């Protein structure tokens, strides 16, 4: 009698136990979740100098210096980064060289800081500070064949100074300051036979000075000065052993200067005799054996020096071409490379300077058309298997990408334009079409089965190490995450980024791969004169209802020159394919771009572009858009922040414009202005709410069941000004002199809603504005710490809506329209807290409906992103919160904000040179997508209040099914047993 009842119970208990044990197992998995929803990509930026390891060191590596101020060692076989240093922006790297085959020498900060790095691992060996007048063009020369105690001296010249530094320990072995007035040393070179160093300098515009120095002591052996008639522009190269070639200021002629004899003698050659087209940029480059290359914007000419008598053109390349430096191959011979475009291919030529007319290598290489022109070439030689000389070259393209070319092929390429992202937007992926079977997505059934077998093995803990790795790889590239279709949760999107080079690249959020890229022709320097710059990228068309069949598109706005009055360029791209749908050159400049919330009938977003004459131009230029716009025009206002003149102005739009006959052009009328007195305040930052931000609730219920109404205005602008003395670095101003004033301004009427002064505060200021609050970060000089302050603004005019009777009787003003013209009654609450880090960027999480609590995303000085709960920055925190306040979730007041190591979003990664953080709402309310960019890229998903609305990926559905099955079985068993028992009872 006793045994039967216990059996189902036991089964049930066993089931429970199983569930519990597996649940704890699932909880413990944490570290391998890294990389499932996030990715991190490392870049270096556009390469400006490269040096190869010598043959002897054996390893195939190259050390590069980039425009993003990165020093990096790359693997020549794969393009992977061995090591990398991102140097601070205010210490720009100028020169790079190798010494003794094991040190990388860099010269930075205008010739004042010389550093040596260990070649294999990139550790810094030594650093020497040199006292020089900072020069624009410091030179670095590593002396070879110098047998001073087996040490190679490093010569640094900057301005009037020359330093010789030991490359072993960085000790200065001699220094020399030339007393010649206004001298700037342009070239330092070593004589090939003896220990003599030549220094060529220019003083003023016409004085040329030449010094011979002893390499061992720095003693001046000989100095000659000579006046050159006509002005020198400062470009001087060494033509051959005893001839200098200098360019004059008008860029019309060259001086050939013989310097080895007692007196300087020179000869003038007119450039027009040699080269016809001399417009645009102009560069002289010396190859050895008397060969000089002259690069203009349209062609490259190779010139041969005939003593000081003259020059003759040896060869000319009319296609856009790039030229490498000369590379020593044998004692007498040097090689150089030319890369030029031939049709859709590029041609890679290697020539020897001894025989300029023939080529050693002529190879045609197919490259992606979206990479633009070749900008730089770095040649390297290697010994082939048949003991002959082979050549390969690193090629820097117009889109900042880096390619390695060898044997007529692109061995690898790096998309380093992604290191200089200017702006980011997102696009949804296409909706999944019906009829896509599993087999299409997975490659075939066998692969699919194999994957599942592996997973099963992993679950049953039968997998060996290789299989575990395979499972991890499978999980990482799980097709579900990387599909090119829209998903239910809105996690899969395209991140469309605009880079400095004018290239638009779409990245998949699943794994960060490049879906498409397009180097915009309108933003390429070769098309128009001047240097175009990419400005912003916006969503142009987001199809919803009527035009569901069309692809979404993005708008790229740039300008075709550096100055503010340069005409703008406008380009529209398909978000799915990257194809350029429309491109135009605007006939006005671009000062401000205002995306409107209005859409025309084809769902194109209306954009207003304000030019430098304060006229607003409407885009798209269609009658339909104009109708929509004119209807809303009287309610449109905009403002501009002029940091130069310290003024904020608000404008409304008027129908007429200065340009007659252009109905898409609108005049503006100044409605309000705020003038900050320039002697006491300078605008440091202005911040506004994100246009797409959604706020869930207008009211905030506080602990004692009272209600506070948030002041939610899309027109709220936060402006911070600083006293002019505090504009410099921290420490440059006394606490008494420094102050920061924070303003909250209504951008329609120019009303200052709140104004508060922080004495003893100094920038840099970073701020983020969201809902009804603003958080800003600054340095407190009195407390010697960084601070974060919060201002929350509440609407008092709605405060008397709390009466239930009023609500029932309809005597409330909740549904009354809000107008900016009414005088707002606002209440402001503020508080400030100490914060340990200095900040590089700040953002706030955005979710689809705005229900999820907010987190601040703070880019710290360590290039990581910290997620800080907004609750810590609540102005209502008090030292001893009451019971009610505790229930509300108010954290007791502390003087500093906590930094919890687990709340670093980037976990162990660093996003080097972090510049921006973008938060994109997913469809799932709890989750937001965070994209961080700098030199590196990092993407992750974040759930500020945990994933309360979905099961995690790790959730075991099998376990759930097993549990249900066990429970059903238990129910059936107990039912059968009870039936049986009942029957037995009846028969008793």
């Amino acid at each position: 009698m006793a045994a039967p009842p216990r059996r189902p119970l036991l089964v049930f208990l066993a089931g429970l136990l199983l569930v519990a044990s597996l649940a704890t197992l699932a909880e413990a998995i944490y570290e391998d979740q890294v990389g499932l929803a996030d990715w991190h990509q490392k870049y270096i930026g556009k390469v400006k100098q490269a040096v190869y390891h010598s043959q002897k060191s054996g390893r195939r590596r190259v050390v590069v210096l980039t425009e993003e101020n990165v020093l990096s060692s790359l693997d020549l076989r794969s393009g992977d980064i061995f090591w990398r240093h991102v140097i601070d922006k205010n210490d720009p790297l100028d020169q790079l060289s190798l010494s003794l085959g094991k040190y990388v020498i860099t010269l930075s900060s205008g010739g004042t800081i010389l550093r040596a790095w260990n070649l294999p691992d990139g550790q810094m060996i030594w650093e020497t500070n040199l006292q020089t007048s900072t020069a624009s063009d410091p030179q670095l020369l590593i002396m070879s064949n110098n047998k001073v105690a087996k040490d190679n001296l490093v010569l640094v010249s900057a301005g009037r100074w020359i330093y010789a530094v030991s490359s072993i320990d960085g000790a200065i072995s001699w220094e020399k300051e030339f007393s010649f007035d206004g001298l700037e040393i342009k070239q330092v070179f070593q004589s090939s036979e003896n220990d003599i160093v030549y220094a060529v300098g220019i003083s003023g515009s016409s004085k040329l000075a030449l010094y011979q120095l002893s390499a061992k002591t720095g003693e001046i052996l000989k100095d000659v000065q000579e006046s050159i008639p006509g002005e020198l522009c400062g470009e001087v190269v060494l033509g051959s052993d005893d001839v200098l070639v200098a360019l004059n200021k008008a860029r019309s002629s060259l001086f050939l200067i013989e310097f080895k004899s007692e007196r300087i003698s020179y000869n003038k050659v007119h450039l027009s005799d040699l080269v016809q087209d001399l417009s645009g940029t102009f560069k002289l480059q010396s190859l050895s054996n008397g060969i000089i290359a002259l690069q203009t914007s349209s062609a490259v000419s190779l010139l041969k020096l005939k003593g000081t008598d003259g020059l003759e053109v040896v060869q000319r390349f009319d296609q856009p071409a790039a030229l490498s430096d000369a590379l020593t191959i044998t004692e007498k011979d040097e090689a150089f490379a030319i890369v030029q475009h031939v049709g859709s291919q590029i041609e890679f030529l290697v020539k020897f300077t001894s025989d300029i007319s023939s080529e050693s290598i002529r190879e045609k290489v197919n490259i992606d058309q979206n990479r633009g022109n070749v900008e730089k070439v770095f040649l390297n030689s290697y010994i082939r298997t048949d003991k002959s000389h082979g050549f390969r070259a690193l090629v820097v393209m117009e889109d900042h990408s880096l390619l390695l070319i060898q044997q007529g092929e692109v061995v690898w390429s790096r998309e380093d334009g992604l290191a200089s992202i200017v702006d980011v937007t997102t696009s949804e992926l296409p909706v999944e079409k019906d009829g896509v079977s599993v087999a299409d997505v997975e490659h075939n059934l066998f692969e699919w089965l194999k994957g599942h077998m592996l997973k099963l093995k992993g679950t049953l803990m039968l997998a060996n190490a290789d299989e575990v790795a395979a499972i991890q790889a499978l999980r990482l590239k799980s097709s579900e995450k990387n599909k090119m279709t829209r998903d239910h949760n809105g996690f899969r999107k395209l991140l469309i980024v605009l880079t400095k080079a004018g290239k638009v690249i779409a990245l998949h959020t699943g794994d960060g791969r490049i879906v498409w890229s397009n180097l915009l022709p309108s933003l390429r320097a070769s098309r128009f004169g001047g240097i175009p710059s990419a400005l912003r990228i916006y969503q142009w068309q987001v199809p919803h209802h009527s035009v569901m069949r069309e692809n979404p598109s993005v708008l790229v706005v740039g300008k075709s020159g550096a100055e503010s009055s340069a005409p703008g360029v406008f380009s529209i791209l398909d978000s799915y394919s990257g194809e350029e749908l429309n491109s135009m050159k605007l006939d006005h400049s671009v000062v401000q771009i205002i995306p409107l919330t209005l859409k025309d009938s084809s769902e194109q977003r209306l954009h207003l572009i304000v030019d430098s004459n304060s006229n607003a131009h409407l885009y798209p230029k269609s009658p339909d858009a104009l109708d929509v716009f004119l209807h809303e025009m009287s309610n449109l206002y905009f403002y501009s922040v002029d940091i130069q003149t310290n003024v904020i102005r608000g404008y409304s739009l008027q129908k007429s414009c200065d340009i007659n006959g252009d109905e898409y052009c609108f005049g503006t009328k100044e409605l309000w202005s705020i003038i900050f007195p320039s002697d006491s305040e300078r605008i440091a930052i202005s911040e506004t709410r994100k246009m797409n931000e959604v706020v869930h609730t207008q009211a905030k219920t506080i602990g004692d069941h009272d209600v506070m109404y948030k002041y939610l205005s899309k027109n709220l602008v936060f402006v911070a000004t600083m006293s002019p003395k505090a504009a410099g670095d921290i420490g440059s101003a006394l606490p008494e002199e420094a102050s920061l004033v924070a303003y909250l301004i209504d951008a329609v009427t120019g009303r200052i809603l709140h104004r508060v002064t922080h004495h003893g505060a100094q920038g840099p200021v970073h701020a983020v504005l969201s809902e009804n609050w603003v958080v800003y970060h600054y340095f407190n000089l009195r407390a010697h710490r960084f601070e974060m302050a919060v201002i929350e603004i509440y609407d008092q005019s709605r405060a008397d809506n709390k009466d239930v009777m009023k609500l029932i009787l309809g005597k409330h003003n909740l549904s009354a329209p809000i107008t900016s013209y009414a005088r707002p009654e606002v209440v402001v609450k503020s508080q400030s807290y100490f914060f340990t880090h200095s900040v590089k960027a700040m953002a706030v999480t955005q979710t689809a409906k705005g229900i999820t609590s907010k987190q601040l995303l703070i880019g710290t000085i360590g290039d990581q992103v910290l997620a800080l709960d907004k609750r810590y920055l609540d102005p209502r925190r008090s030292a001893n919160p009451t019971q009610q306040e505790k229930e509300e979730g108010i954290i007791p007041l502390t003087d500093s904000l906590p930094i919890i190591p687990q709340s670093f979003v980037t976990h162990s990664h660093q996003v080097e040179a972090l510049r921006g953080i973008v938060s994109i709402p997913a469809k799932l309310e709890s989750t937001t997508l965070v994209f961080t960019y700098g030199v590196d890229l990092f993407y992750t998903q974040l759930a500020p209040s945990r994933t309360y609305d979905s099961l995690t990926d790790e959730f075991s559905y099998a376990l759930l099914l097993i549990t249900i099955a066990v429970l059903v079985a238990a129910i059936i068993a107990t039912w059968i047993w009870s039936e049986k028992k009942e029957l037995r009872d009846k028969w008793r």
Partner: protein
Amino acid sequence: MAPPRRFLLALAAVLLLSFSLTAAAFQSDELLLNDDEEFEGVGARPAAPSPPAAPTVSSSRRRSAEATSAGVGESNAVQFTLEHDLGGGEGFTPAGTFSARLKTSAHGTQTLTKLRFTRNELTEDEKDAFKKLLQEDGFYTIRLPSNVLDPTRKDNVVSSIKARCIPRDSLDEHIVIHMDGVNVLAVNYGSVGGCQYPRPVKFPSKWTFSSYTILKTAEQAPRTPSFVDQLLEADNGLGEVIKPPEKSFWAKYWMYIIPLGLIVMNAVTAAANIPEEQAAGQGQPGARAPAAAAARRR
């Protein structure tokens, strides 16, 4: 319109009387406190259209009673002009005059106090222009010099409002001037009440302005609380931990006691039932049949 006027006058008379009690001669600025934020309602007082005066510092230095008593410094009278633009392409014309006292504090910083505002009477042309502005729903724009002492600077702070927001019985306006020392940062011009879209055309019954002006300066941010001292004290002290008040036995253990009680009660009733049944079973063997019958009936 007359009764409110009369009331205002009466009020002014009462105020005047109270002033005259404290000081021998009437000076309206005597009673006002030295407050950063001043609010002064100046009724639409018809004033002679003053010449379009540039901001001037009057040369006659009057010592205010406060200044002498505090001995802080001297105060000068300052005047500056409010200009308005009624559209129609005529540009800005003088519309009123602000007069205030310039006070120099011990630190050498200058502040304005006792701001008073006099509106000029609207001329017929201006009335017409205003009517036109109302009809076409245009902007009424005012401006002030950005520095009240330095008239040579050409910077002006501007503020606008839809003209239809202003008319009530008279023309009601509300001016907030944000100051930083002697610099006017911004002026906020607005109507007294709300002004919701769509704005109907409404003409005032009286073409005079009733103005309210406020002078505002920046607030000081509170200092960041620092708990370092308190923490040190806590460390030095004996670390007294305030114990939460002791809960009663019942409050602490009720969740155990109730189930226990239920179990005990259950057990007791069960124990009471079993002997009874057993006794019944032993005593009456024939009782099984009715029990089975009862079961069958179920």
